[in-house]
């Protein structure tokens, strides 16, 4: 696992690789914003890039790609509720009594 010095040395290379990719994606996301895409497209592009950056930070820096079941379980539960929290309130505001469908 990651407690073994030899393993850790190999990980250092992946940390540097991820660092490089994060820089690239940062420049990409700023560049994409300069194109003034339509709002839905702009949001999609920005969030996809952010999600990719985030996955790398989580998977490699936070070692999440080799984590234990208990952690995955807790995080999966959190993800479900996170999505609920993010979308249900605004959905309920968009659906009004008296508003024609």
């Amino acid at each position, binding site marked *: 696992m990651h407690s073994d010095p030899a393993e850790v040395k190999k990980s250092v290379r992946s940390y540097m690789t991820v660092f490089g990719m994060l820089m690239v994606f940062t420049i990409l996301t700023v560049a994409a*914003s300069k194109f003034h895409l339509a709002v839905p497209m702009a949001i999609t592009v920005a*969030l996809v890039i952010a999600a990719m*950056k*985030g996955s790398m*930070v*989580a998977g490699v*820096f936070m070692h999440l790609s080799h984590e234990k079941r208990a*952690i995955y379980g807790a995080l999966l539960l959190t993800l479900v*509720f996170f999505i609920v929290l993010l979308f249900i309130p605004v959905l309920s505001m968009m659906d009004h009594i008296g508003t024609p469908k």
Partner: protein
Amino acid sequence: MNIPYTVEVRPDTGLHNGKLGIWLFLASEVMLFGALFSSYILLRVGAPEWPHGELSVKLGTINTIILISSSVTMVMAWASLKMNDFGKHRLYLLATFLLSAVFLVNKYFEYSEHLSKGEGPWHSTFFAIYFTMTGLHGLHILGGMIVMAYFLGPGAGMWKKNPEQFANRIEATGLYWHFVDLVWIFLFPVLYLL
């Protein structure tokens, strides 16, 4: 009192207590920032118009690069301990601390600029959510810096007495720090670019 699995892992879960603890804490933080992102979505969808280009993309990008770099130095600070190089560990931890300080200084300049133009949190819902989210995020950076200062200072003594537990604590600090970086990775495009 010797609490089991503080340092060694429990066989059936493969975890030591602190690792599970910090991940649970991060889960709660996901919900905290999630609520703020949800508020952002709700307020923006409900707004007849939403400002664009109010924030300095340049400063935001610089800060993004700084924070990502600090994430790398943080993970290297832990990796150095695992490779038994305490000196390198301290250098990397100090680098992380200094990079965070630069981030906060940049934020200070950013805030001052807006405030001098009367663009405080009271100015509009956009600035309200901007200041609140980056402010709370900034407080988390400050919190992380305090923890790092502790491990650079009085806390470093544990390396001599219990190197494994010290490494675990640095790992936990690192997990927290990467999370702070993760939040910014989403905060930056949402507030600055969209």
